[in-house]
């Protein structure tokens, strides 16, 4: 199985040769790869070098936390890669953005109203969690739509709070 894996804009061609070997470019490497205690913690021994890492599945990419650094990694097989290239790539601007609560909390303030034009980085909502007030900001310019919560209300994690058109 061959994968094209992208980290920070750089592509790596990685082939899973068998249980114990991978090929990266033209180098054949010995791998010994284990998940630890059934957790998303992985131990990799690559040609004798020992690495340990948290690997989480993000929305589209994988998040790899290695020695205090986090990498966004996209793993695609050749077919997926071709499909994405054909689709022209890039998320369409202008499509609706749904602001979701990143954690459970209490809505402390909503400094915007429906129909209001907002700039990227503008505060949309203040959510109190763990005794801290957290500002949720607009990821891009747009117009606020459908505010679904009220000040003083509790929200669950991932609950949709409002949308930006």
């Amino acid at each position, binding site marked *: 199985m061959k994968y094209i894996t992208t980290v920070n804009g750089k592509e*790596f061609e990685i082939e899973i040769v068998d249980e114990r070997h991978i090929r990266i470019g033209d180098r054949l490497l010995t791998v010994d790869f284990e998940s630890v205690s059934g957790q998303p*913690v992985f131990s990799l021994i690559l040609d004798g070098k020992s*690495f340990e890492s948290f690997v989480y599945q993000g929305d589209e990419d994988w998040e790899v936390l290695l020695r205090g650094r986090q990498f966004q990694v996209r793993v695609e097989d050749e077919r997926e890669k071709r499909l994405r290239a054909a689709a022209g790539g890039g998320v369409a601007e202008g499509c609706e953005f749904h602001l979701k609560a990143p954690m459970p909390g209490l809505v402390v303030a909503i400094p915007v109203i429906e129909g209001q034009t907002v700039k990227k980085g503008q505060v949309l909502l203040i959510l109190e969690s763990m005794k801290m007030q957290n500002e949720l900001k607009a990821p891009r310019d747009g117009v606020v739509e459908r505010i679904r919560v009220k000040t003083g209300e509790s929200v669950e994690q991932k609950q949709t709070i409002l949308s930006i058109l």
Partner: protein
Amino acid sequence: MFNKVLIANRGEIAVRIIRACRELGIDTVAVFSEADRNALHTRYADEAYLLGPAPSRESYLRADKIFEVAKKSGADAIHPGYGFLAEREDFSAKCDELGIKFIGPKPSSIAAMGDKGKARATVIKAGVPVVPGTEDVGNMTDDDLLRVAPKIGFPLLIKATAGGGGKGMREVRNIEEMPTLLQSARREAESAFGDGNVYLEKLVEGARHIEFQIMADAHGNVIHLGERECSIQRRHQKLVEESPSPFLDEELRTKMGNVAVKAAQAVDYINAGTIEFLVDKDRNFYFLEMNTRLQVEHPITEMVTGVDIVAEQIRIARGRQLSYTQDQIQFNGHAIECRVNAEDPFSNFMPSTGRITHSILPTGPGVRIDTGVYPGFEITPYYDPMIAKLIVWGETRAQAILRMRRALEEYRIVGVRTNIPFHQTLMDSHRFMGGQFDTRFVEERFSMESAAEKVDEAQAEIAAILATLVAHKETERSTHIVRRNERDASNWKWVGRWERMHR
């Protein structure tokens, strides 16, 4: 002399206090909210009583319920820990009234230092230098504050009168942004302390936050246990502390220590307390405030002095003399504490909640961890995001930093995101290693991203391989599941056949 201590707190500090009591042979009573039924403090104490629902206002801030538990359990002393009711004059006074020993200072000392304005006035009288600001606070309206602000000069700080821990604190660069900031500061202060009052203080630029640990007994003895460097902060929350401060020499240490003792004496202080100073780049120091309680970062002082501060607090409350004179306090080596918070440093330090599914603590020589969590425990959004304190000791500052690096690298917590990568990046930064930082360092001259730029190709390749192997495993696994499901569906297929056969 008391024999049963109620710990009016939760988390690591409640566990810390239970440990001290147990080592002194004193019985312990825990109180817990519905979210903390299985918390370590509930499990470790000799007795445990439910206070109420998870939110602090309905549990850990309910003084009335805590006194009910004290009565029911026969607890004859209360240790308040830090936060919650620790710096409430009325709580301490009520303890006195009920004949329960409050393990902390007298109500009058809390009052004198708790109101930041009064505190400043008191220490000024005792000849202690303070940061210029609105000294007669408490009743100032927004209009008053807006009027006085230009006299103090910008930049300045809005601070909560009842405050601490950076809550209700805002930095103001000019008069225009001040009304909005006043409003949000008051809102946060109201929510954190039940008191929306704020005051203004000149912002000392390039300042370090350095504090002195004070111990005072009921017999008039007051000593200090040296300083803690607490300049590594984000949003006015301390993240890393160390002792001694790389910025102080012996002369300045002695001078500031003496001033700290004087400040404590000015309010007839008894028990453990902390005098916080700002020190500017010219080594001028200003009294900032006194924390009339045990401090989160007390362990680093314990590591370099060998004094068990919590045990000493209890001894003092039992009426004993201090176990040490100032001369007996020797500083040995260097200690660093990293506060491990359930926050994602790669997503703007957003709090992270969830169940801890797995954990491996760094251990071995010179490493101490104070924590209240364990695998299976749920991190809820109701309380402070700090889940552990990682403390190391080394013969020198350099050794302590190296040890902290290896400890951070070993630490595994799965289930919530933590700021461990922040600490790793910090411990690798040349400015931190060089001791060159002030209280603005983290926010202004540090970022997770800038560090990431230094990533070498080799590490990116390893990350690529790791993700590819995990993705490959996932694909293989899901293929297996599909196959298994096919098999499982066979009963239904069989039913389908029956149907067809007998149709």
